């Protein structure tokens, strides 16, 4: 085989006490499409950042096209022909499409003066190459997510890349757009460009990749041609364990539902959504990005209230127009972006645990006694199986999985009756993940009503007793999980629903 486009050996990296990469060796050859898999938090994003020179590795060597780079910088990486399309796309919100596409080209080619006509021409050419129909003069701020991704792809291919890395490029776009993306990737392959493709979706891996590399806990555990790899084993390699979780068994206790939603709608997001949850149930809600599942969850928490329909709690019709209303009715919400929306990273453990119930913690004179923080922390560290640390420890001293538990504990401390969890195990290590599942099951057995939003079909089957599938803002299926297969769920999620402006 030819000389590798890139070869890394013995890469190590740690962040404020967490080791994220452990002796990684990897080589990618030209014209090859390599799939990089692994759970969130397995270190693949860090590896990508090291290859692109954004992070420097603590140890190890990197060589690109035979040239060794002792300390690779971002400009060196780009000049050597490595292009990354990040999950957040890394586009400039304040610049136009044309400029976004052409700017990195200009940096690389050291073109010191800007010719806007040239920018536009370059952008149009690149956009045409991937079949995207966008106005080159539009500001990025006004584009949709999929459109932003197209800009990012156009930007990558406009340069003479020899390796294009795509970090989960298919999570935010529709099936049709995925097909287009694959066509683009095949085109790159024909030109001898290597592609590193980050994805977990089996059908995608089989359809487009030559080789599969799986990472787990910062280590490379699989590196094999796709043809020789039993794709069913992917979950085992990713998690490092046979799926051993006992499925959740709901014991019907009778009585009226805790929460009933009838014909709920919010314009442009979801419509005529009805379902109910009984005490002790775990209801999973799933669907593609943009199916309205997250919006539905948020409206139940009062973040963006429903515009029509009814919400009943314990049979009583209730208006939930604000977070305050949700609190008053015992509804808690674990946000998807835990660091961003759930955790006070530089505040203490005690404060984080108490943040949803702080008003009830004040004693005489309105002062809070430290003792309360201590008691509260001790209690929830115990309940959530966390390693004991003083209650004054800042949340930033904990690992991702434990931070997840802190946020969980903060909501449980508020003693909710209905708990909505939005993707509770994304970015959590395997051990913590199954422990979080156990906690959820235990809470349900104690009579809590749980609504879990999730993409993870395995998780849905093993931890919920009922599943609601949404597609294009509507509920397309509601079923008991022990009567449905993973394939059926996945088929229903991906089913092409008519979208706005796509009628023929």
């Amino acid at each position, binding site marked *: 085989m030819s000389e590798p486009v890139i070869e890394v050996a013995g890469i190590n990296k740690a962040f404020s006490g967490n*080791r994220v990469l452990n002796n990684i060796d990897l080589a990618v050859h030209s014209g090859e499409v390599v799939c990089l898999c692994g759970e969130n938090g397995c270190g693949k994003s860090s590896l990508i950042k090291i290859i692109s020179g954004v992070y420097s590795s603590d140890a190890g060597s990197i060589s690109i096209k035979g040239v060794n780079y002792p300390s690779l910088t971002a400009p060196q990486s780009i000049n050597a022909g490595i292009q990354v399309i990040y999950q957040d796309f890394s586009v400039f919100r304040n610049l136009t499409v044309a400029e976004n596409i052409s700017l990195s080209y200009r940096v690389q080619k050291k073109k010191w003066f800007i010719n806007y006509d040239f920018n536009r021409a370059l952008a149009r050419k690149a956009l045409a190459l991937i079949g995207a129909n966008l106005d080159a003069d539009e500001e990025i701020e006004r584009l949709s997510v999929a459109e932003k991704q197209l800009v990012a792809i156009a930007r990558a291919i406009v340069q003479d890349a020899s390796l294009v890395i795509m970090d989960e490029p298919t999570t935010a776009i529709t099936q049709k757009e995925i097909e287009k993306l694959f066509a683009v990737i095949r085109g790159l392959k024909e030109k001898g460009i290597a592609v590193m493709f980050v994805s977990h979706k089996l059908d995608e891996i089989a359809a487009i990749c030559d080789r599969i590399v799986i990472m787990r806990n910062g280590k490379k555990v699989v590196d094999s041609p796709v043809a020789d790899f039993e794709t069913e084993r992917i979950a085992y390699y990713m998690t490092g364990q046979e799926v051993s979780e006992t499925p959740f068994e709901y014991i019907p206790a009778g009585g009226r539902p805790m929460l009933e939603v009838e014909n709920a709608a919010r314009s442009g997001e979801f419509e005529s959504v009805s379902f109910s949850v009984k005490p002790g149930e775990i209801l999973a809600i799933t669907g593609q990005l943009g199916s309205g599942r997250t919006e539905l969850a948020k409206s139940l928490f009062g973040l963006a209230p429903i515009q029509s329909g009814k919400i009943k709690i314990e049979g009583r019709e209730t208006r939930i127009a604000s977070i305050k209303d949700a609190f008053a009715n015992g509804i808690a919400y674990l946000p998807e972006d835990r660091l961003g*929306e759930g955790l006070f990273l530089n*505040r203490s453990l005690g404060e984080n645990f108490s*943040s*949803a119930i702080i008003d009830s913690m004040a004693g005489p004179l309105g002062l809070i006694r430290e003792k309360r923080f201590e008691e509260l922390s001790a209690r929830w560290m115990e309940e959530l199986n966390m390693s004991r640390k003083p209650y004054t420890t800042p949340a930033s001293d904990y690992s991702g999985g434990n931070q997840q538990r802190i946020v969980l504990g*903060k909501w449980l401390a508020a003693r909710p009756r209905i708990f909505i969890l939005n993707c509770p195990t994304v970015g959590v290590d395997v051990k913590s993940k199954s422990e979080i599942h156990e906690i959820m099951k235990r809470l349900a057995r104690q009579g809590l009503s749980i609504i879990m939003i999730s993409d993870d079909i395995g998780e849905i089957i093993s931890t919920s007793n009922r599943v609601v599938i949404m597609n294009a803002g509507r509920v397309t299926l509601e079923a008991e999980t022990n009567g449905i297969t993973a394939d059926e769920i996945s088929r229903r999620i991906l089913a092409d629903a008519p979208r706005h402006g796509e009628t023929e």
Partner: protein
Amino acid sequence: MIENILGRIKKMDRKFTQLAMISVFLFVLMTALRGDRFLRPANIDSMLFQLVEPGLFAMCIAIAYLSKGIDLSIVTIANLVGIVNGILLRRTVLPDGSNATAMLLACLAVSVLIGLLCGLLNGVLIAKVGIFPILATLGTQNVFMGIGMILTRGRAEGNFPKALLEFGNAHVGGVPLLTILFLVMFAALCAVVHKTPYGLKLQWMGSNSKASWYSGVDNVKVTLTTYMISGLMAGLCGMVIMARSNSAKADYGVSYVFQALLTCVLGGISPLGGRGKVYNVLLSLIALQILGTGFNMLRVSPLIRDSIFGFLLVISILLDYIAEKRRAEILNRRAVNKNETDPAGQ
């Protein structure tokens, strides 16, 4: 007993020990250099007096910083209070001064009211309209100063009743009354920020406003409260300035803002929000006061003094930055070592 105290000191944050050591060092240094003048009761007394105004302004900035904001309008609020009170006193106090005490109490009420209203305006512009704090308070700074100018035509108000000046110079047990009142307020603010639900919400909002919102914190209310407290303290400082200087002017003491920003950063209150302990501000205030008095005695001009303060600020930021980096590096190294001995990870 002693072990207990040592243990407690160890538990205190690094910043506290650092600042305490610097203050003690400066104190000893000044005693060694100019002990005869520095330790004279009159000098100690005047230092205690001089603590009050910058101290009150630093308190305002401290809570604004904690909320991830800033309040540039504080000094102009104080001046506005002085001007309104001055006009009020000039018009109402009888020539024999018999109703002076009553009118001064009225002035106190007016100070509180104006302070709260000005703070409310800042809060509304920031929390409701959505203007960045630095811009909003830059605007109100001009507005408040402008109102003061319009009321006085740029002249100073002065000649306040004797009772006010006597109050300003009063001592209790040899300590200036104003300083005692300031310390009481300072302690109260520490308690409010670090021990009450509001104070914690304030810091959470500064740390991560989205997470605080999701936790049920009413960010708008917290912001309004914060700027109102800031305004209130600035208003009371207006009374202090009246009593201490016997005058009120629309553009008095503009450099106090810089001093307050500096005091808070040196005291470890992060302008990026949600980080720092208010009690440390008192220590940095004392350190700067000793330094300022020292410069005075060594006949360093005020401009050079400000310049040296600027240097101090940059150096302190630099030291914090290096310390933070070192800490992260040590943690990383520890993690790598740990993983090598324990390949299974945590």
